[in-house]
């Protein structure tokens, strides 16, 4: 929240997104990015407990129970998704302040996309957490991987006008599509446009869905490989 207002206000003076309608400044551009950041942080932090619980705690009891690993991972993923979604919904209440008008479709779609994003990100967190044997290692990965993924997703700045290599990195970043899908669904019922060109709506949704499936399968495989 504070992060959003400070950075958003600070940069809005010098930075005008191309194609933005009048009256929607950087704060509005930045808004979906902040929601995604909250989803990212909540989802990933929800998975840190796996690192310790696996060595000493609650998770050990679950691992010796006759429960297949895919169900354990699904439960963990849904748990993280729920937490992240609740946090995200709180932020969604602020959408009208940046000129977003919700209709039934756009609000349901927005929540749906948030759920997908949270699920995918929780699984990404699980994929990492199941490999780690210390929380320090997890934090290192956070800084090296997760923050850049977010920065280069179009949350902070659009891909138009950035150097070629950066534009490509952003194109290859799965979160770019998640963010685009979220942006599209937010502005579905708002006449002002969704800040210029980005990935297409259907493509974004497709890639986000694929991201969820892949991270879930990855997390399950990792969990199975790391335990008996």
């Amino acid at each position, binding site marked *: 929240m504070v992060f959003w207002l400070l950075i958003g206000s600070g940069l809005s003076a010098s930075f005008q997104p191309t194609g933005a309608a009048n009256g929607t400044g950087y704060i509005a551009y930045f808004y979906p990015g902040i929601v995604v950041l909250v989803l990212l942080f909540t989802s990933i932090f929800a998975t840190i407990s796996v690192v310790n619980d696996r060595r*000493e*705690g*609650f998770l*050990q*009891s*679950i*691992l*010796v*129970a*006759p*429960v297949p690993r895919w169900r354990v991972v699904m439960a963990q993923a849904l748990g993280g998704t729920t937490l992240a979604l609740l946090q995200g919904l709180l932020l969604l209440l602020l959408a009208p302040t940046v000129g977003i008008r919700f209709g039934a479709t756009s609000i349901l779609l927005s929540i749906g996309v948030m759920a997908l994003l949270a699920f995918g990100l929780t699984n990404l967190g699980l994929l990492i957490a199941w490999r780690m044997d210390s929380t320090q290692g997890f934090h290192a990965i956070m800084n090296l991987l997760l923050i850049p993924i977010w920065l280069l997703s179009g949350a902070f700045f659009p891909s138009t006008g950035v150097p070629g290599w950066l534009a490509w990195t952003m194109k290859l970043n799965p979160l770019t599509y998640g963010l685009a899908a979220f942006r599209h669904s937010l502005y579905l019922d708002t006449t002002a446009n969704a800040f210029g060109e980005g990935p297409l709506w259907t493509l974004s949704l497709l890639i986000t869905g694929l991201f969820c499936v892949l991270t879930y399968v990855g997390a399950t495989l990792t969990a199975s490989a790391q*335990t*008996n």
Partner: protein
Amino acid sequence: MVDTEVLHSITPEGFRRFPMVSDNRIEVENLSHAYQKRQALDNVSFDVSCGEIFGLLGPNGSGKTTLFRILSTLMPVTSGTVRILGHDLATEVKAIRNLLGVVFQHPGLDAKLTVVENLRHHGHLYGLAGKTLRHRISELLERFGVSDRAKERVEILSGGLQRRVEIAKAMLHSPRVLLLDEPTSGLDVTARRQLSDYLGTIAQTENILVLLTTHLLDDAEACNRVGILDAGKLVALGKPDALKAEVAGDVILIESTDNETLGTAIAERFRVSTVFTDNRLRIECKRGHEFVRDVVAAFPDEIQTIRFGKPTLEDVFIKLTGNPFVEKKDSEN
């Protein structure tokens, strides 16, 4: 003489509950396990039967936690074979998990949930639900004397009560094997004694196999049979009394200003072997009371304190390994 175990297994109750299981033992054969370089378990073999309380005794770092993790299906068998009630641990993990109740050393309860909530979630993991589960939960809370605390959060219970809830949880799905890792750690003397009474009752009335690890000699004394681990090797196996009988007669411990000189002198004069452990001289001999009298008469000035006692499992450990019963530098895992 009436064999009570046979009587138990031919009751209708016995047939109904355990129809598929032909075997009633844990058999460990030539089990070895190595972490990168360190050999944590070295060719360990033993077996335990239902109705028995078996204690794995060893100082920290002796490999007992590794053995526990393998038996509880947390880690795979890499060398050797383990059969649990007739199922091969390497290939039939799922069948075995249904038979096991496991109590870990670190709390396996969610402290923010109530006692009943913890048990309910655990029941769901084992496919129990509805009326059966509710009935079973109240039955176990009753048996472990925690019924009146059922609605309280786990975090406000005392350590002893939490451990009881853990065991109730592990027993919820009527396992035939109960594995406990250091179950008495963090408990006071009263709670420890209560715990071992509970385990004794469970083992006998339900014909359950109880296997626990411990580094406390008192806990091991309370077991029916004990396996002593040292540096990954099983150095002794048997009933506590039988093991203690292997130590010849009595044990005398002497402290003096110069243990080494005194040790040599005593060894020469009385023709006994002396061992220097833990800053003390340790001597094993028959008719210890006479020896104490003679040795004090012979070295009245050198001896500061002298202790005379019947052998304990600690003495068994020292005799077999030549080391005092303390923690190894190399820590577990």
